[in-house]
């Protein structure tokens, strides 16, 4: 008790308050020393994220946005979800950072420094939709294993970098090339240096697309550390796990890449539909490629109360993986009737598209506004959960917000 009085009565009191408990031997703290408890990372400061972002997991870091935070046409860093499989690399030295192209299907391995990549190849900027394969997982029944993402594991920032195709052509690939797989600097959760937290990739057709970049800028600035600084593979429209962060090596494989999280249930769906909860054999699982059509109402925030007779403006974004969104609709009556939204063209291929509508609500009461996008091949978002799968991927069910008219 005496010790507490002592601490309360000294300058240590502030530190005590910050740590939330008494500091034993507080008198002995050297000047200028920062307590470990205070180094304890506040993710919002650490990653420059908005305080409304939701932390799902702090080891590894997994943080998602809420629908209304994604209202910007180009997602700023503060509202961009973080999905990490391992620990963020420490002590990154940009000057010594290299990218090596190797694998069974390269003529000879070749290594580039970052400045070589920048000077040797032309840079391109695209706005690219990156959505976590497990976005929406929290809705599956029976529950699916993993971080329980709701709706906010999606972003559409601009990415600047060189085309992977240009680099691969320069390195020289053979006709045996089937798939690329990335290897990165992040650290396995067990800290076992022999294990990679994640090493995924894409078939050559995706690797060679114009928009598949080795990016060094996001929204015109250095890529934030949590998003892959200093070099990130970016493959828009596919599960964001294809867009490897902190990339050091790209292997051009003569087979489907078999790195960490390319096999088992990870980022794979049952090749044929299964009943909820059904066991699926390993050989009956297929790798996810393009993400499905989906949309989000980003304005207003769910829970808006408006006066009777007033029109309600809604807006948001829609995307369709490799495809374009061709139609956007909303319903105020649980899908009995649908009205068309105005839909903009994407800034470039693989960028999300913005929609808006003026909604009339006929009388007082509770409403839900449901949004439904349709892709260029005529596939629409389901109102109910799509096919159950062991890891709860690809939930593209309609987004909805609650509105009250008074």
């Amino acid at each position, binding site marked *: *008790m005496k*010790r*507490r009085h002592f601490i309360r009565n000294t300058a240590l009191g502030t530190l005590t308050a910050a740590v939330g*408990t*008494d500091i*034993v031997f507080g008198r002995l703290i050297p000047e200028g020393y920062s307590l470990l408890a205070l180094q304890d990372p506040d993710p919002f400061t650490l990653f420059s994220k908005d305080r409304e972002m939701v*932390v*799902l*997991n*702090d*080891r*590894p870091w997994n943080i998602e946005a809420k629908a209304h935070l994604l209202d910007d046409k180009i997602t700023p860093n503060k509202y961009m979800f973080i999905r990490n499989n391992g620990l963020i690399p420490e002590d990154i030295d940009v000057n010594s950072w290299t990218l090596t192209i190797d694998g069974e299907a390269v003529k000879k391995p070749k290594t580039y420094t970052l400045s070589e990549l920048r000077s040797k190849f032309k840079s391109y900027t695209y706005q690219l939709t990156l959505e976590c394969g497990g976005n929406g997982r929290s*809705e*599956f*029944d*029976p*529950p699916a*294993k*993993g*971080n*329980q993402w709701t709706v906010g594991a999606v972003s559409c920032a601009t990415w600047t970098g060189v085309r992977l195709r240009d680099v691969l052509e320069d390195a020289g690939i053979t006709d045996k090339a089937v798939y690329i797989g990335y290897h990165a600097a992040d650290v*396995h*959760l*067990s800290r*076992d240096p022999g*294990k990679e937290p994640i090493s995924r990739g894409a078939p050559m057709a995706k690797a060679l697309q114009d928009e598949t970049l080795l990016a060094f800028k996001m929204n015109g600035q250095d890529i934030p550390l949590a998003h892959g600084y200093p070099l990130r593979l970016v493959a828009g429209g596919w599960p964001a796990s294809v867009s490897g962060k902190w990339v050091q090596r790209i292997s051009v494989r003569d087979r489907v890449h078999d790195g*960490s999280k390319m096999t*088992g249930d990870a980022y794979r769906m049952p090749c044929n539909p299964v009943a909820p909860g059904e066991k699926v054999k390993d050989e009956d699982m297929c790798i996810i490629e393009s993400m499905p059509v989906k949309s989000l109402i980003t304005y*207003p*925030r*769910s*829970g*808006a*109360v*408006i006066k009777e007779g*007033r029109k*309600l403006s809604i807006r948001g974004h829609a995307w369709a993986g490799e495809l374009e969104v061709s139609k956007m609709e909303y319903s105020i009556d649980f899908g009995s009737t649908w009205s068309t939204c105005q839909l903009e063209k994407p800034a470039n291929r693989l960028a999300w598209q913005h929609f808006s509508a003026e909604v009339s609500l006929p009388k007082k009461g509770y409403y*839900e506004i449901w949004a439904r996008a349709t892709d260029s091949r005529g596939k629409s978002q389901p*109102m*109910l*959960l799509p096919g159950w799968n062991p890891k709860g991927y690809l939930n593209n*069910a309609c987004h*909805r917000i*609650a509105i*009250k008219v008074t």
Partner: protein
Amino acid sequence: MEEKEKFREQIRSIYRLLSTLLVLFVITVLGVVYLLNDPDLSFFRGNEVPQEYVAVTTEDDFDKIENGIHVRTGLKEAEGLMTVVNNCTNCHSAQLVIQNRMNEERWIATIRWMQETQNLWDLGKNEEIIVNYLVTNYPPKKKGRREILTDIQWYELED
């Protein structure tokens, strides 16, 4: 002889009496001296000092429980808690455990996956304790094909 014997007996009892008085006197003196130094008799309530320490250490406790929650990890206090803390929060955060709702079969499958690919050790007898803790405290929730909207924060939408 009898007279002599009686006399000796009297001497012995006087001696005993004097010895007893001396012992009592010494005890009294020691008692008074002690009381002058420690009027609260705190020496004989020695428990109190450790009790104070116990109270303080509880507050600083690394494994503090508050409202049925293990503060450091957020896990519920229940049978098997520390086994879960010690085996399941070394690599990943307890937040990953808490988010997930699985039955016994799927928790075991998850443990096998972690053992095969993520360097999780053999849990031995602890496996049953861990799985029991998880299915008891974090059971799957029925959600159906689409849940109703909950936790709506109503607000006046300005023009």
